[in-house]
């Protein structure tokens, strides 16, 4: 794989490979010495034009645990805030000899544009309202584990129904998730008020629905999306109160879920708005597992972009520490 720009870049085999390697990587998290030599000598730059805590830090940890040299460049206090064009910034960074560029940008399509300017591997860490493929990978990785634990005899995603609830039209998480979950074989239902449906839903590999209560009893997992503050004043729905009553995962709605159905949220959460505290902290909530999976999945993705060139098999934590 040259770049990871979209969840559509992944087929079933490559996604499964990423999950399997991530399982190995995750063993590292419990070790006292968290280091693999796989990417020694490779340089990874995290180029973040938007604020981010969990994505940036998990990419940083992922790179460091694989022994890559990791540099963080963020917009504040750099030439990015001094009016330099995206192209000049990227060319400047690339000129230093970078192997992979992890980029987050507020404009949809920015990472794809970057691939036209430089030779390094480009990894989309969230572009505008377009995609966030590593978030979809860690969500699916977390769900795969959950499904394997709760019903080991069944397939991972075949026959599973997953609902994505909230601001679909502005969500890069939703776009990447619907593509990846569809590739993995799940049925996806999008639930949102029609003002938050994207244009052209007929072409999406998902069913769109406006009634959360109708959908909840059907699903094996429900993924709640964050309501951005600017949407609350954007006229997409009348009031936060009405949104919560219509589309929030309230404590009352928890009882409508099948036993063992998983609750996911990409974070950061608005507790009390799209998700209640009871739901966020429920036994079947995977929200902290999602965060924990972020490092392992991003290690796996970095390895698949940067480590595969020399025909060596994927490293395993077992080999390194036994």
């Amino acid at each position, binding site marked *: 794989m040259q770049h990871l720009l979209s969840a559509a870049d992944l087929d079933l085999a490559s996604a499964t490979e990423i999950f399997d390697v991530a399982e190995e990587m995750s063993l590292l998290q419990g070790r006292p010495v968290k280091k693999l030599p796989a990417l020694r000598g490779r340089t990874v730059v995290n180029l973040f034009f938007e604020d981010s805590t969990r994505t940036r830090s998990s990419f940083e940890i992922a790179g460091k645990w694989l022994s890559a040299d990791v540099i963080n460049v963020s917009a504040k206090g750099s030439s990015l805030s001094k009016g330099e064009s*995206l192209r000049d910034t990227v060319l400047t960074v690339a000129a230093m000899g970078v192997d992979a560029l992890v980029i987050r940008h507020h*404009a*949809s*399509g920015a990472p794809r544009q970057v691939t036209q300017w430089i030779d390094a591997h480009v990894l989309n860490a969230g572009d505008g309202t*377009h995609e966030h493929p590593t978030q979809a990978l860690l969500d699916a990785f977390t769900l795969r584990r959950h499904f394997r634990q709760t019903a080991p005899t069944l397939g991972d995603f075949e026959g599973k129904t997953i609902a994505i609830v909230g601001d679909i*039209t*502005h969500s890069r998480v939703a*776009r990447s998730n619907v593509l990846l979950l569809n590739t993995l074989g799940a049925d996806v239902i999008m639930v949102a008020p029609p003002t938050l449906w994207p244009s052209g839903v007929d*072409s999406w590999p998902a069913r769109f629905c406006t009634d959360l209560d109708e959908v909840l009893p059907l699903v094996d997992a429900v993924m709640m999306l964050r309501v951005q503050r600017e949407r609350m004043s954007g006229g997409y729905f009348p009031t936060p109160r009405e949104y919560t009553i219509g589309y929030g995962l309230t404590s009352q709605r928890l009882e409508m879920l099948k036993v063992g159905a998983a609750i996911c949220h990409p974070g950061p959460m608005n507790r009390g708005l799209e998700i209640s505290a009871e739901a966020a902290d429920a036994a079947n909530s995977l929200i902290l597992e999602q965060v924990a999976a972020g490092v392992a999945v991003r290690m796996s993705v970095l390895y698949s972009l940067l480590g595969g060139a020399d025909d060596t098999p994927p490293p395993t934590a077992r080999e390194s520490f036994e």
Partner: protein
Amino acid sequence: MTDILITGADWLGDGRGDLLVRNGVLSDPATAGSDIERFDADGLIALPGLVDLHTHLRQPGREDTETVASGTAAAARGGYTAVLAMANTTPVTDTAEAAEHVAELGRRDGVAQVVPVGAVSKGLEGAELAELGLMARSPAGVRVFSDDGRCVSDARLMRRALEYVRAFDGVIAQHAQDPRLAGSDACCHEGTISGRLGLPGWPAAAESTIVARDVQLVQLTRSRLHVCHVSTAETVDVLRWAKNRDIAVTAEVAPHHLLLTTDEVLDYDPTYKVNPPLRPAEDVAELRLALADGTIDAVATDHAPHAATTRNMPSRRRRSACSDWRQRSRSSSKP
């Protein structure tokens, strides 16, 4: 100056014949002397000089992107003998003095005739009428008024503008795009592709609802409207409705809206970010039909150069580009 004899040109729909150019003026080919330059036009079509109803010459204010000299040279190369220069320069062409300045630049530097377009509102702000009458009565003789680049979105201002220009047989050229429906962050046609790419879009209705309102304001005011760069099938429907009722409306379409579809934006190539945006194939087909049957009256280029530096921006921040007759004519001039 040597006479030029152009031989064997096809006079579109009017047989073939020769043309004699003497001192820059067409003359009777029979009077051609012996000291002439011959140009074999076999297989070529002779047309009268074209008029471009919609250009941005960028002077005064953005001479780094285009000037009257460079813009009209490009126009002449493309067969245009007159161009209308839109008012969104710096300063805006919203006074008689500004209009006369553009006309003077045209007389001084123009390779083709430059016809200044006056702004409808002061500073293109959409709040108060510009001095339409003074621009009309000035030596520049402005008759076409437009806030192009922006829509005259306030219905009352549009009504007053339409009424007022009747006094001197003016016409309002509307950039039909409701700013409340098509936000300033819009990048492409709102539809399947914008939804998939996560790009904020211009819905087709942002254009057609304004045209529907405006043709009814024309009916009310018995004035004249010209619709700039029609891009949607819905607008064509509205134009047909209006023309069937003899409402005085004319319309133009830009070449890129006849030739390209919104599929071009799939790779996020900002070259294809234009305002109004490229539309789906069904709209393109309808625009072609409308041009052929006369519902759309003219092709106008919306020639609007932008500095290359603004093209290195991500799509959402990039300035819109438009057709460039210079690039086309330059490449077509090569063998």
